[in-house]
């Protein structure tokens, strides 16, 4: 059996560009998703019903529908809607759609991660903070969130890895991330075996690097606090 290494080697620049875009997309999506997630987690644990419902609706919708559908909604359905609204043809680049869809999706998962973190903090912490005259916001900011965030790091690492893999779905809107690079090369060379093996290994290298980094972070942050 012949395995054409040269197919991989000749296309390494294209593959690496794919790696780079995949990585950038993931970092941006998880970054924006963290902000979205924090906002919705705070709404979710608030005592103001409408905010709770809004957050629940958001989280349920994005976790309960396929990411592929969400990407199509942002890239195809939303432009149609906006076009009809404005009365003229409107669309936006695939990169923008990809960032929006991945961020919104990641935001829902991260909201649940933060909610779990916040609710895992013993009730006495909030009570102690409030008994000292802190407002709810101050207690959240200085007491609850720092502890909750620390506990959220392992699941955030998992979310990062999941998002890195799921970002391959944006290849359907023709964005040249790693998966799309693989498809293009495979189509051009008729060597799917070599190309997709290379793509898989590149994904694996990325996810392994990230999980190493996450466990390093855990150890570093774990040092200064772990009581209960």
């Amino acid at each position: 059996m012949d395995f054409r290494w040269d197919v991989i080697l000749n296309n390494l620049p294209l593959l690496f560009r794919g790696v780079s875009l995949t990585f950038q997309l993931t970092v941006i999506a998880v970054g924006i998703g963290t902000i979205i997630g924090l906002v919705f987690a705070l709404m979710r644990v608030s005592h103001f019903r409408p905010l709770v419902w809004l957050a629940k609706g958001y989280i349920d919708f994005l976790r309960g529908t396929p990411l592929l559908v969400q990407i199509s909604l942002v890239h195809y359905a939303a432009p149609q809607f906006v076009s009809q609204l404005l009365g003229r043809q409107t669309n936006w680049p695939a990169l923008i759609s990809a960032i929006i869809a991945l961020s919104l999706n990641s935001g829902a998962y991260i909201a649940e991660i933060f909610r779990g973190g916040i609710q895992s903090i013993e009730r006495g912490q909030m009570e102690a903070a409030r008994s000292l005259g802190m407002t709810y916001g101050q207690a959240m900011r200085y007491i609850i969130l720092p502890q909750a965030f620390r506990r959220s790091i392992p699941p955030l690492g998992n979310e990062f890895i999941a998002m890195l893999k799921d970002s391959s779905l944006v290849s359907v809107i023709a964005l040249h991330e790693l998966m799309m690079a693989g498809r293009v090369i495979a189509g051009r060379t008729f060597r799917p075996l070599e190309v997709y093996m290379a793509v898989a290994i590149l994904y694996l290298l990325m996810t392994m690097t990230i999980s190493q980094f996450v466990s390093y972070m855990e150890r570093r942050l774990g040092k200064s606090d772990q009581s209960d």
Partner: protein
Amino acid sequence: MIRVTNLKKNFGRLEVLRGISCQVEEQEVVVVIGPSGSGKSTFLRCLNQLEAATEGQIYINGVNITDPRTNINKVREEVGMVFQRFNLFPHKTALQNVALAPIKVKKIPPPQAEEMAMKLLTRVGLEDKAHQYPDKLSGGQQQRVAIARALAMHPKIMLFDEPTSSLDPEMVGEVLEVIRDLAREGMTMVVVTHEMGFAREVGDRVLFMDEGLIVEEGPPQELFSSPKNKRTQAFLSKIL
């Protein structure tokens, strides 16, 4: 200084407090005793509105704290609380635990707040533990830091919710010693406790609670040696 009239608290259908009225004068140390489930902790937690009252009024220095228009955060600055489970902030050092609220709530500059925090830690005998995290401290030490933390806001009233109940026996003394000092300095205090010896020694007045009511109250010598109410007698005969 504290005036409570007809305070009631329900948790759903459960009536935990069924009409409590009492007063605490300035510099007075009031000790609350009673069987578990009698509502003593709930009563104490109503005094800084960690539990919202279902009915009745609580006045602290003339301010009705059960009125929703009252800024409860301002009131809490003047009412310190010490919890059974310490509730120190685990991600902060002992010093930071004490200095945090003055810095964030009273906007005292950090160096000044830390200097004051250090003085308070010295007062509770823990200046050498200032830079330790709570999980490196014993229970007794944690509780003393918690007392210093409450004192850092310069409260006019201190509430103690079974401050020695989750301590190993050999650490009870060091915590009671700190509370005793506070009493001597004239701090107004309400203490929920199971330490009867301590109640007798520092209490100016003892309230005996059972089933959500104050059943009997009086000076400790009187209440402990010649209780009038049958339930007080039954309770005291079990634990003394």
